[in-house]
């Protein structure tokens, strides 16, 4: 298991620069590269759909208020080629995500780096910053 995990992390690290080109819309027109947020919460939905895989996370603040965040990943095909599959996340999983927040102030963000699960597993999320040169 750890052997496989090591390979996955290795692939993720190496694919990172390649993945920067993978978005069908201008990153800078939707997300703020300078507004990096960290979210920890419970997965409520995982949509393995085009053009972007999305997952939704309930995040509880200090007062106990719960906010549902909409998190964007790359496309199903790009994630498949990077070693993901549609079973990678499950409703109820506890995850920690670093992400770029949407410029329009909605609870929407573009996940970057790795999505970290409660058991320590890391799943490559990619990084869409810098992909606008085309």
């Amino acid at each position, binding site marked *: 298991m750890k052997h496989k995990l090591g390979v996955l992390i*290795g692939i993720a690290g190496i694919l990172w620069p390649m993945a920067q080109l993978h978005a069908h819309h201008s990153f800078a027109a939707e997300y703020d590269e300078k507004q990096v947020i960290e979210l920890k919460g419970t997965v409520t939905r995982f949509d393995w759909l085009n053009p972007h895989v999305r997952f939704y996370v309930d995040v509880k603040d200090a007062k106990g208020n719960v906010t549902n965040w909409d998190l964007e990943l790359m496309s199903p*095909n790009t994630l*498949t080629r990077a070693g993901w599959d549609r079973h990678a996340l499950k409703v109820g999983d506890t995850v920690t995500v670093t992400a770029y927040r949407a410029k329009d102030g909605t609870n929407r963000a573009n996940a970057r780096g790795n999505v970290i699960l409660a058991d320590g597993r890391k799943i490559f999320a990619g990084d869409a910053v810098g992909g606008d040169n085309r």
Partner: protein
Amino acid sequence: MIGTRIGSVAVVAAVVLLVMPEQSPLTARAGQAAKPAAKPAPPAPRLPNGRPDLSGVLNGGGGIAARNLKKGDEIVLLPEAKKLMDSRQSKDDPEANCLPTGVPRMNPYPWRIVQQPTHTESTHIFILFEGNVHSYRQIFMDGRPHPDDLVPTWYGHSTGKWEGDTLVVDTVGYNDRFWFDFDGHPHTTQLHTIERFTRTDLNTLSWEITIIDPGAYAKPFTVQTRAEYKPGWELMEYICNENNTNVPHIQGPAVPPGGR
């Protein structure tokens, strides 16, 4: 256990470095360290009729990025085209709205050249795109001319011929709806493209594109791009508009203030 993990990473890294495109920063670093230089890739394969075999799944290439401009060429917009470009908003980018990218813009997904038949001269060559809407280009190889009165379309009317080992594709009849890039570089229905496809070795397709559009640009310009053959890859389904929730959240001009 940690040793195993590091070992695995190293093996994967070594394998991936071997197949990474040359322009990758990772390979550039490896290239400096590697002595002697890696063996050159095998030559481009040929069909039974002697023509180069361009068929296969490819990744990359296309676009009009300034870094790919032919030496001495420049992109000079006419005033009307400049005005149009300055007015464009990112939310209206056809690609963000899951419409085709036209020519020569590419979406970030693989594509496939299909050359048929293989036992005589090809009558058609097809380019199949995984993104943006599973579209395709049809290149007539039978010597027919462009029709006089073409309905403007996203991929236009393409005829191809061989110049030595280079496939030269001439296309007219484009509509003016697609953008050349995220910045919204425009064109008119006068757009005429001449593309030169050359499989320079087993792994590499050189794709040179000349843009001629007297309705939008003061002079023609040429971009020199490369795509990489991906023998282990297959095209996959990609239906862009099945859950495209991005558009209402996209804001601002196509060219961000201060440029990209």
